[in-house]
């Protein structure tokens, strides 16, 4: 008997996870829509998506670490590091384009170091990236002496505010990142190897995949996207804040996990991660518009995260 060819594609369970986060997002949006007329307006959703873009790009980076069964805690420091590099170089008179490249390169270096320690020295991902979180944060503070650095560039400001017609640049950056990551993971050989290393590193090694190099690449990719997010952060805030971004760190992992990826590796969902990022950002946005108080907002955000996870759990 030969392999039965024609099974409906929908059987592919791994893909179902892609639709849990979007489902939760729809529920949340509808709830906010019912609660306030100010939520589902073109302008608010536009801004909301812009606000989500940074977290989305960060989550896409985190996705690389997670897919090889790792975790990248260093984003909490790598993000302000890229921002500070951009701030410091731009302030020192380096042409903006070059400054942006330096910032991104700086983040890639952090990713490479993480990847080297995890991949080649086989150190535990959690500790490696926690250690580099601390080291990089210290270096950033040294660089800036703890001060925020203002970067007034009309180019960066335009990126944060403008777009092509109604389509904002930030959306396009996040979209481009998502498409690229999706393509890399699911349509290239490198992606297959990332999934294989995360799914079973012994088996991957046995098939000749250079497991160490693949791990290195995963963390480097996380660093790269973190650098891009850092530049976006500067564009949006008009400057660089050197302090640790624990929020972004936890949220980036949360977005990936809400999106349906397993922290045990081997599975990835690009749509999921991006939607996870939009979902988390929507909560802050929606609850702020509704105007619920500080303490209740904290409770509500947590409760919705739990509900979304529950929804994801009971997906088909």
């Amino acid at each position, binding site marked *: 008997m030969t392999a039965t060819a024609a099974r409906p594609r929908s059987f592919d369970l791994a893909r179902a996870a892609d639709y849990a986060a979007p489902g939760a997002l729809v529920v949340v949006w509808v709830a906010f829509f019912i609660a*306030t007329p100010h939520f589902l307006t073109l*302008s608010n959703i536009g*801004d909301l998506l812009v606000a989500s873009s940074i977290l989305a790009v960060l989550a896409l980076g985190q996705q690389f670490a997670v897919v090889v069964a790792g975790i990248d805690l260093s984003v909490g420091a790598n993000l302000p590091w890229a921002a500070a590099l951009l701030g410091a170089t731009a302030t020192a008179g380096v042409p903006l384009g070059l400054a942006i490249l330096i910032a991104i390169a700086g983040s890639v270096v952090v990713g490479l170091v993480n990847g080297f320690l995890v991949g080649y020295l086989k150190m535990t991902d959690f500790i490696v990236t926690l250690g580099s979180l601390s080291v990089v944060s210290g270096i950033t503070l040294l660089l800036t002496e703890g001060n925020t650095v203002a970067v007034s560039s009309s180019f960066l400001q335009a990126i944060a505010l403008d777009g092509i017609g109604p389509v904002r640049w930030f959306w396009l950056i996040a979209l481009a990142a998502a498409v690229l990551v999706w393509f890399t993971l699911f349509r290239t050989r490198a992606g297959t190897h990332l999934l294989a290393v995360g799914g079973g590193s012994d088996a991957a090694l046995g098939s000749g995949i250079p497991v160490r190099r693949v791990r290195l690449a995963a963390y480097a990719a996380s660093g790269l996207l973190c650098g891009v997010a850092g530049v976006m952060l500067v564009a949006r*805030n008009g400057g660089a804040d050197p*302090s640790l971004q624990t*929020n972004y760190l936890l949220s980036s992992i949360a977005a990936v996990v809400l999106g349906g990826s397993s922290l045990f590796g081997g599975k990835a969902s690009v749509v999921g991660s991006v939607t996870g990022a939009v979902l988390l*950002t929507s909560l802050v946005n*929606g609850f*702020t518009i509704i105007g619920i108080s500080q303490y209740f907002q904290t409770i509500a955000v947590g409760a919705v995260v739990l509900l979304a996870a529950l929804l994801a759990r009971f997906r088909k």
Partner: protein
Amino acid sequence: GRGGDDAKQASGPKIAIVTRNFTNPYWAALRDGALAEGKQRGVEVNVQAGTSETDADGENAKISTLAGQGYDCFGVVPVNASNVITPLVPVARAKKTILNLDSQIDPAASSAAGVSYASFIGSDNVAAGTLAGQKMLTALGGTGKVVILQGIAGEQNGINREKGFTEATGGKLDIVQRAPADYEQDKALQVTEAILKAHPDITGIFAANDTMGLGAVQAIKNAGLAGKIKVISVDGIKDALASVKSGDLYGTITQYPYAEGQLAVQACIAAHSGKPIPQRVVAPIAFIDNAVVDQQLASFPKPFAPFDNPLAALVAG
């Protein structure tokens, strides 16, 4: 003196100062003031900190560690009203001088634990909030809708500033929303954006610190409402002054942490030489708007206007 011998007096006190963190420019300025003053007066000053605004126990560990290291005088900025009391007990038992810096430590709990402070040197955060409220009233012509951006939930200085602002504007300004932004620029930006959707008609924002003020200003610019909404925040960090100068931030209440740091060192030296120091030294606060920002920038991080320093005479020479 407290049994201090003359030789020790000549060499000056060893001073330990512990604050919340150095990632907030505010505390970095306090450190710089203390270190500069120590250098100038030729005394050893060690400034340490926890890792965040709310790292109560991290700060405690620093105090405990330094307590065993032979310092003569401790200046402590608490994370909250009570966290430093227990670790200070051994310090008090060793009869070292303790100064309470910046934020008030619970007096009742302190005396119950047998800890007393030679002096409180700090600014009054309720007063800062009140001043901000008054300036906001003036800026808005006495009426209008405003929003308050809150700091990290549970952080006491922010709570006090909010209180002062609310009292000063009560019955006059309509506070349409109090929104948390965790002392973060990016979060303040995001939150302000959302608020502008629900309340496009607000004319003022009070941010509990400058970092959030900068985020709010950015959101207002992004929304094309520059000039229509006045933002006042607290701290007087350099970036905020620059923003005031460029006309983005309406004003900042500067609290001179740098001066606080200097005062702390002066108080230690005075106490060490056996001079009585005042129970309460209120560090100056000032409202910096476009009118005085140049002066302030010129004298940064010191106050641009002289203030009444009761310690100056004690350490003169």
